[in-house]
């Protein structure tokens, strides 16, 4: 892009100083190329931001390390600011404690759900203090709001009988 810009600059100077108006179409052409490059780059970066925003809704607030590896510093900063805005928005809804709108993406039918574990995830503690060991293929009957995050990440599987 710099090469295009420099060529254009020299031509503009020449056109202005010597009055060679016929250089103008070339200048215009190079300018169009510069605008096009700018458009492609901007669209690419914007699309990346849209996907990062989708990650917050799908993955939750903590991103796995290999996803973070592919994001540049500004994108990480954007992500943490988006997280903060979303969190403060959720806190402002629904009374004193706020409402977690990333839960219950589909309308819930029951409080407790049956889940099967797809891979080893270690120990998992639920509200009343009991610790459950999540081993592969073990089935549990757990409260919905605890499992939703893990189901979305693919660790647990919702079993519908």
């Amino acid at each position, binding site marked *: 892009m710099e090469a295009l810009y420099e*060529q254009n600059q020299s*031509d503009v100077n020449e056109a202005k100083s010597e009055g060679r108006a*016929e*250089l103008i*179409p*070339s200048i*215009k*052409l190079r*300018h*169009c*190329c510069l*605008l*096009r490059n700018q*458009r*492609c780059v*901007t*669209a690419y970066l*914007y*699309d990346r931001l*849209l*996907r990062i*925003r*989708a*990650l917050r*809704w*799908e*993955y939750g607030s903590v991103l796995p390390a*290999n*996803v973070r590896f592919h994001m540049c510093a500004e994108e990480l900063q954007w992500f943490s600011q988006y997280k903060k805005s979303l969190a403060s928005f959720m806190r402002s809804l629904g009374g004193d404690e706020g409402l977690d709108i990333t839960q219950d*993406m*589909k*309308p*819930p*039918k029951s409080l407790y*759900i049956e889940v099967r574990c797809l891979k080893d995830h270690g120990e998992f503690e639920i509200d009343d203090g009991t610790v459950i060991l999540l081993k592969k293929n073990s089935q549990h009957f757990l409260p919905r709001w605890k*499992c*939703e995050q893990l*189901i*979305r*990440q*693919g660790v647990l*599987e*919702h079993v*519908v009988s």
Partner: protein
Amino acid sequence: MDTQSYFPVPPGVGMEENFLSLDDILLSHERLPIRTECTFPRLGFLEKSSDTQDIPEGTKMELPLWLTKGLYERKRKVVSVELPKVYKEGWRTVFNADPNVVDLHKMGPYYYGLGSQMLHFDSPENPEIAQTLLQTFIARFRRTMDSSQNAYNEDTSAFVERLDCLEKALFRSGQSGLNGFQSWEKGQASQLTASSLVLNYRKRKITDVQP
């Protein structure tokens, strides 16, 4: 129905393009035959057939849409655009006769989009082009809608490959609506699923590991 979190910028409607839409950027990459009305000094290296320093007046070239749009001026000093053959008289009569038979994907995958952008270039046939585009779309829409709503779990690739990009998008949204309805009927709608992003990401990770 799988809840969507990723909403890409949609393509523009009619004669306007969306600046950030990836579909519109791909669309504006299509080439148009043009004729230069004035010389372009020091740009001879773009014209591969001749070895001159400049591009002389009256050269016939193929330029992409974005460049043509940028260079075009109403006073007609710079470039003049020829209609691609799909929008010319001959093909227009074919479209008026029976739009359903035509393979729009082969005619340039962005038939409607490019046609709408061509209206920027003030050709004398503009009203006819606009009319043909509209009529073709209306005639083909019925078939697209019907098949998207009734082809459940079938191989639709033979039909879809004859569709233009705009029609493909419509077809896809029709299909996703149909799938959502069917899964609701089966009671799968209340089943929580892993998000599609997670599943896709996991598949890609495995290929990263293998050298």
